[in-house]
């Protein structure tokens, strides 16, 4: 037998070979570093916010400083962690492997997208160091226009730039999935992770240009006094919200669809079954991508938008619940009579199902016109979207990171420690955000750091939960790097999963496969026939 080719981590060494790499797997690791950095940064701001909220008085920060803290938390978490997180790290690494390709369709564009992402992120970092931004991550006018008193333009420019990284990734994924599938790998044999990323890419390509231009329009108004959003100049501030949410609601699906893709893979593996209702799960991704573009006005029920539009957007928002529920029910049906084991990725995946369901259902409360009048801009909203983004996306990101860690880096993570951490994160998460539903329902508004005494107990609970959650993240940040040196060497398929990525070495070689794989089975097909109980 001939010598095995070196893995993508070996072969070439040195900074240069990494910074100029065209290998999707190395670019994925570059993204992993970038995304982790911005997650830590966003995490630091979250800690400061939660510390301030321990007491009803504003004793740690001035109001202006507090405004900047929650803005920076939101900006870094949303634009530089949640949106690129799963697609740019796991998607980048896995798409070519899952479809039996040697790389993405446009390797150079892939590297370019990382550089653009980093430049955008560092630009925003500069805005932060230069004095910060206080508009909230949504950059609503007139906070960001008439009454802007911070480095809005610099931060917005950073987000504008990083948007192009998103667009390039989307274009790359779409071209790859259309053109580079291995022989025999028809659309309905694709892993659901690939379907999810296809739908995500559509949103990236169709939505991101709109937010980029919107941000540009804010700059145009400020610099050249063209009346777009400022009523004094003949503009309409609510127009900004239309333009912003046309992208930013679908952006939630940029975060959650790849997460759902991860969950499908993990559930199939650890219940040792095919995903129940494969086609429904696949098409529900596309349905979510399309319907997700028709609901943005649910952010604007109390903004001055017409009541008629509110009714339409409310109805359309309810429709998105259908494909989301299709996924949840199909995962549960997959678990039914599955041969389930509770490895760390599975614990995260089960956590995802519960938490995402709560996050999604409370979204329906918010999409109900009259209820929204009561809870709009309260902690109820904060709790809702953290259930979706942290309980959903972050849980799935951790599920995926653990699941493919052996594949990506060739080492097994410490299983027991990882399971304990998963439980800690689940407990910490719930203690942090469940009290916020109650706080919001009782009327505590978001984005204030001074609050009435009656809200203190729940806020203390929330901060306590955040410290447990933080402990969980910190443990992960220690044992994953630790495993790179001390973890057991991974076999090609340590979890007995299905999919082409598990047929090659761990970590894979530079061009992924020794020879082009040929696919002759459905996704998640198990060799042994399923036992039928009569």
């Amino acid at each position, binding site marked *: 037998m001939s010598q095995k080719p070196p893995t993508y981590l070996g072969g070439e060494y040195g900074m240069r070979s990494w910074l100029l790499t065209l290998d999707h797997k190395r670019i994925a690791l570059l993204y992993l570093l970038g995304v982790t950095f911005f997650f830590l940064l966003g995490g630091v701001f979250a800690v400061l916010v939660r510390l301030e909220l321990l007491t009803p008085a504003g004793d740690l920060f001035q109001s202006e400083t507090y405004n900047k803290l929650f803005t920076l938390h939101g900006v870094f978490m949303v634009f530089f962690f949640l949106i690129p997180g799963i697609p740019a790290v796991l998607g980048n690494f896995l798409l070519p492997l899952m479809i039996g390709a040697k*790389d993405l*369709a446009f390797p150079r564009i892939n590297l370019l997208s990382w550089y653009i992402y980093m430049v955008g992120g560092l630009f925003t970092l500069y805005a932060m160091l230069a004095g910060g931004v206080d508009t909230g991550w949504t950059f609503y006018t007139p906070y960001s226009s008439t009454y802007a008193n911070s480095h809005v333009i610099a931060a917005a420019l950073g987000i504008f730039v990083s948007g192009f990284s998103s667009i390039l990734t989307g274009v790359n994924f779409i*071209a790859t999935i259309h*053109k580079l599938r291995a022989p025999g790998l028809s659309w309905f044999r694709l892993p659901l992770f690939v379907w999810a990323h296809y739908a995500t890419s559509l949103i990236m390509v169709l939505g991101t240009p709109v937010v980029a231009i919107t941000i540009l329009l804010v700059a145009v108004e400020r610099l050249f006094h063209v009346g777009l959003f400022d009523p004094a100049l003949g503009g309409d501030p*609510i127009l900004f919200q*239309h333009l912003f949410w046309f992208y930013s609601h679908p952006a939630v699906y940029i975060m959650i669809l790849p997460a759902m893709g991860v969950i499908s893979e993990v559930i199939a593996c650890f219940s040792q079954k095919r995903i129940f209702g494969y086609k429904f799960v696949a098409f529900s991704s596309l349905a979510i991508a399309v319907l997700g*573009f028709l609901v943005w006005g649910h952010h604007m029920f109390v903004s001055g938008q*017409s009541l008629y539009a509110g009714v339409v957007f409310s109805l359309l928002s309810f429709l998105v619940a259908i494909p989301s529920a299709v996924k949840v029910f199909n995962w549960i049906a997959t678990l039914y009579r599955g041969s389930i084991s509770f490895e760390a990725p599975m614990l995260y995946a089960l956590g995802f199902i519960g938490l995402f369901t709560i996050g999604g259902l409370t979204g329906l409360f918010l999409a109900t016109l009259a209820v929204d009048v009561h809870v709009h801009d309260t902690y109820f909203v904060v709790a809702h979207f953290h259930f979706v983004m942290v309980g959903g996306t972050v849980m799935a990101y951790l599920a995926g990171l653990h699941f493919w860690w052996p594949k990506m880096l060739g080492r097994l993570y410490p299983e027991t420690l990882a399971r304990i951490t998963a439980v800690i994160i689940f407990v910490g998460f719930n203690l942090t955000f469940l009290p916020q539903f109650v706080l919001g329902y009782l009327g505590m508004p978001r984005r204030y750091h001074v609050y009435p005494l009656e809200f203190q107990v729940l806020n203390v609970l929330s901060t306590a939960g955040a410290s447990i959650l933080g402990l969980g993240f910190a443990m992960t940040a220690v044992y994953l790097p630790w495993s790179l040196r001390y973890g057991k060497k991974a076999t090609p398929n340590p979890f007995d999963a299905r999919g082409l990525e598990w047929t090659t070495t761990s970590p894979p070689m530079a061009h992924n496969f020794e020879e082009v794989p040929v696919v002759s089975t459905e996704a998640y097909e198990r060799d042994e026939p399923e036992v039928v109980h009569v």
Partner: protein
Amino acid sequence: MVLIHEQASLMSEHGHVLPLRIYFGVFFALLAGTALTSWVATIDLGHLNDAVALAIAGTKAALVILFFMHVRYSSKLIWVFSLAGFVWLVLFFVLILADYETRVPVQGWG
């Protein structure tokens, strides 16, 4: 290499060569559209103002996409994606106008 071959086949869809007169024809059509837009702007068509301006702009965009961007000579897949862009634009306008066209002025706020 397979990869490079695949990339080449992605590119070849844009390889169609057009005679120059088509490019010039489209160019002058775009200029005419611009002139038309500014001329129409001097006439008050009431509610139709926006519709007419958008119709001209849409036609011009279609010309650019079909000829300058070679979509007319591209595969069905490229057609689907190009049309999707337009469909999305329509969704965008329809739902935004659902707000603007149905707003009720609040008494005392001019």
